């Protein structure tokens, strides 16, 4: 058989198989405590809560698990989410999609509406606020940290690229912000691992598979 005939046959077969193939709709991917996380939960969170559709599913799953774990761990201490805070979040979402109609169309694909999305938004905001509260308490940047960064990182870097080395007093606040951000990331990772350790997590399927 010539290549073009093979290609036609293959395409036809492929088309036929596509027509008859079962499309995965949803499945459970993990269990944390007594709650189940499905592929749907990950896709909704990725799209509308984390607002990063390109986030790898495994990473999105970890963030969803963390959110659930935080809600279980701090259920009596979670900050309440005011109407204005939720609205601001939804406004941000709207800006991303440009038009309300586009956003609603996208939501309807997941059988959601803004109203139905609200509880998920509040859950996410509560988690975010709780995380900020806890991480803020844990992060301290001492003057020694700033000095050490100034001496070991800032100054050599500036010299290496022939840039002026500004006085410590001028750059201290910038350095502090940078160190705080790095420490926050580290602390966030440690805090996430600590929380997740309290709960039994069972992997049910690979979220990366279609």
């Amino acid at each position, binding site marked *: 058989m010539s290549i073009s005939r093979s290609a036609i046959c293959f395409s036809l077969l492929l088309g036929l198989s596509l027509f008859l193939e079962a499309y995965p709709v949803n499945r*459970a991917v993990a269990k944390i405590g007594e709650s189940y996380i499905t592929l749907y939960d990950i896709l909704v969170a990725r799209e509308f809560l984390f607002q990063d559709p390109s986030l790898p599913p495994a990473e999105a799953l970890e963030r969803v698990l963390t959110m659930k774990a935080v809600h279980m761990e701090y259920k009596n201490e979670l900050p309440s989410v005011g109407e204005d805070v939720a609205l601001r979040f939804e406004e941000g979402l709207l800006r991303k999609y440009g038009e309300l109609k586009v956003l609603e169309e996208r939501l309807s694909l997941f059988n959601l509406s803004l109203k139905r999305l609200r509880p998920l938004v509040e859950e996410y905001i509560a988690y975010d606020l709780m995380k900020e509260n806890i991480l803020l308490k844990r992060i301290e940047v001492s003057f020694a940290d700033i000095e050490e960064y100034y001496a070991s990182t800032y100054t050599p870097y500036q010299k290496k690229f022939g840039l002026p080395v500004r006085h410590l007093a001028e750059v201290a606040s910038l350095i502090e912000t940078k160190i705080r951000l790095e420490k926050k990331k580290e602390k966030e990772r440690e805090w996430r691992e600590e929380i997740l350790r309290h709960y039994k997590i069972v992997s049910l*399927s690979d979220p990366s598979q279609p």
Partner: protein
Amino acid sequence: MKRLLSPLFILLLFLLPLAAQEPWKACLGKPIGRLSFTGISLSQEKIVREFLQSRTGEPLSILSVDRDIKSILQLQLFDNVTADAVPEGESCELIFRITPSRFIRSIKVEGLSRRSDRMLLERVNSYLRTTFSGEAYYKEVEERAREEIDRFLKESGYSQYSLSIVIKEPSPAHLSLFFRFRIPQPPKVSRILFSGISGAEGADLRGALSVKVGDPFTLERAEKAASSLKSLLVSQGFLMATVSSSPQILQDGSSSLEFHVQKGQKVVLRILGASFNPKILSPLWGSAVFPPWAVEEGKSKLLGELRKRGFVLPKIETSFSSDESTITVEYRIHRGTRYRLGEILFQGNSSLKSDELKRAVAPFLKDYFFYSYFDASCMADMVTALEYLYWQRGFREASLKVEPKERGKNVDLLFSIQEKRQAIVESVEILGGLFFDRYYLERIAGISAQGPLSNDTILRWKNAIEREYKSKGFDDVKVDTVTAFGPSGSVRITFTIVEGERSRVKEVFWLGEPILARSLFDKSMVIKKGDLLDQARIEESMKNLENYGVFDQLRVFKIPTAPGEKLLVVQTEPGRTDFFNYGIGYGERVGFRGTVEYQRLNPFKRGNIYSFIVKLGKNENRFLFNFDTPWQHKGVFKTFFNLWYEKEFLRSYTYSREGFAVNAIHKLSGQRFITSNFRLVNTNLLSLDIAPSKVDRENSPFSTSSVSISFTQDKRDDPFNPQSGSYLSSDNTLALRFLGTTSKFFKTSGRFQKFWKFKNDVFLFNQLRWGFGGGTIPIVDRYFAGGSFSFRGSGIDGLGPRDPSTDSPLGGNTLLVNNLELTVPVPIPLPNLQFSVFYDRGNVYKNNKDLLRSGEMSNAVGVGLRYRTPLGPFRIDGAWNLDKERRKRFYVYFAIGNMF
């Protein structure tokens, strides 16, 4: 055209993964034409369909599918659920692919090497059992278990080993995980070190160590060695010594053992003024103890011991001195006088009567069979018991103290009570309930204000309210109680009810292997479709199912499907059905014998049991077939059938017999039974050691048909080792010439046992046995007595008439025997060993007239030793026959099992 096809083909390949990112779009909005399930049984599918939100005919909704997946998983019956959609023209098929859960039945580590560390394996297996048994199985379980096993092994000094896993599936729903642990070569101890002591001390201890260089290393060995070192140091007076071992695996694979020794100070204990061994105080001086605390605890212990012995008012002076190396403690005891208990008196009790207070302290006053001294150590417990009684009656602030008052050789106990204010329930309010009015609830729960406050009463009221709601379908009812105290001791109690939703049973489902007939399952379920969800009826249904004895596990799930409706799902796991037992025993009539038994449970799915038993011995051959039906009518009635063949070689005769019996047991209460039976038996006397005339010319095969009724009342505390209570049984048999049988007689027999328990483990038993009969009783059915289980002052079957020429026992139609026995503990530290003295009296008579005419009885006294085991005592009895005309004066018997 051809040139276009290849790029088109390539384009298709690129587009395909894109289409797969949100694949459900292909079916979104299309109506569901078909709903299918894979991986579950039809009965499971029926349950799942009941609460799915996705329905045929309705548009496919990804949100509904998500909720359905979570609802299915919440049943806790399934591992995972995947939903797929297949386009079918204008509609689509929605397929739920469900993986049933499997549970871990057993998980353990097995060491195949003989030199494996048993103690370590026991610890690891105990941990695995506690953590994983019964859990749902996921792959993570294997990894978690392996991590834990590795941790145990490494902490115990193992580094070179292999661990393989074998998974077995004893049933579709269960897994057993076996981790096979192998050490290619157990490490040897290459070095022993000591820390915390000098070199010379280490050399001394090395000599006393139970592990040496070159010995194979095991954790057990190391810990035993540390423990024995500690014992050695303690025996030398270093009561606060600690010894721990830390093994380390060296690079060459051998093990280095280091013992960390902390001797601490030497403790010298002296006790003057009473005969106590100072060693009784040694356990108080463990490591890290605060010495003044140990001194005071020692004083308390000695005071307690003195009080136990009747020294009601002892005094102890202590002196304590300490230097770098030694602590010296001296206890100077002034015992005072020993007393017996006189009166128990109360003063200050205006609200509670003295009789009631005496009843509260009575359990602490032991029986005084022998005139013995008062155990004053119970005084503190008596005060606590009285305080609790007052607290229960609402006297929350009552205070009590007890003062012993000497009165000659006795001591009276005077309890001084300050009752103070009684909290009285002023009002009881019931809020929140709409379904019942408060007056109805008050009546049902027996609530009444104006009584004293009692926590037990409040709890009883609360439980009664909850029970009433739950019986009417309010499965989720919550009742909170608030107790508010007023200034004048008045109390207001408020019950706040949150009713929840009232539910009915939408459907009853049975999930599990159908090992019981469906009709029996339905009969057991007293709660049916459409009934209100009543927890009490659910529990009754579960109990009915349990009574069949065929299920290993029974679980009930209540699954909400709609407001006011719940599915009732009963999940069952089948139990084991085949049992094989064997054993060797000894009976004094039959000698040694072996027994083999096979039992099959539930052969016809109706909860029946059949069993085959074979007993073969020197003097006995027995083959039995039993068939039991399950308990009926809420466990009060059952029947069973027997078919048997037996052959016995006795002193006076040898016989064989085959028979059939139908029996019924009716349980009148937990302790009372009535048993009735009908028997058809054919007997063949194979040999006689007595004159044929003595067997009433029945030395050819003869048959018996009889009915009997027995009554049993068992109030013993333990059927194998009874110490208190009583036992009564009576059996009445009537044999008639029915169905062509030849025997005609009646028999009535019975026994009554009474057990008394006294102070200091002293027991008294008495047993009376009787038997009366009339008509022509075949020799096989006559009464015989004599031996370790009836009359110990004669040989086996030795009581009663004998054949004049062969002297073999003939048995009789009448029996009367009494046994009286006193048992005391043996005064040496061997637990469960007892000494007894006994008196047996009785006889067997040819007939009732003989009993009335002569009434002669044999008498025997004796002594014995008993060693208690869980299945009854091992006995040695020696008895002296007191009759003037006796065959032998002294008899010795060995037996297992109670005389009574």
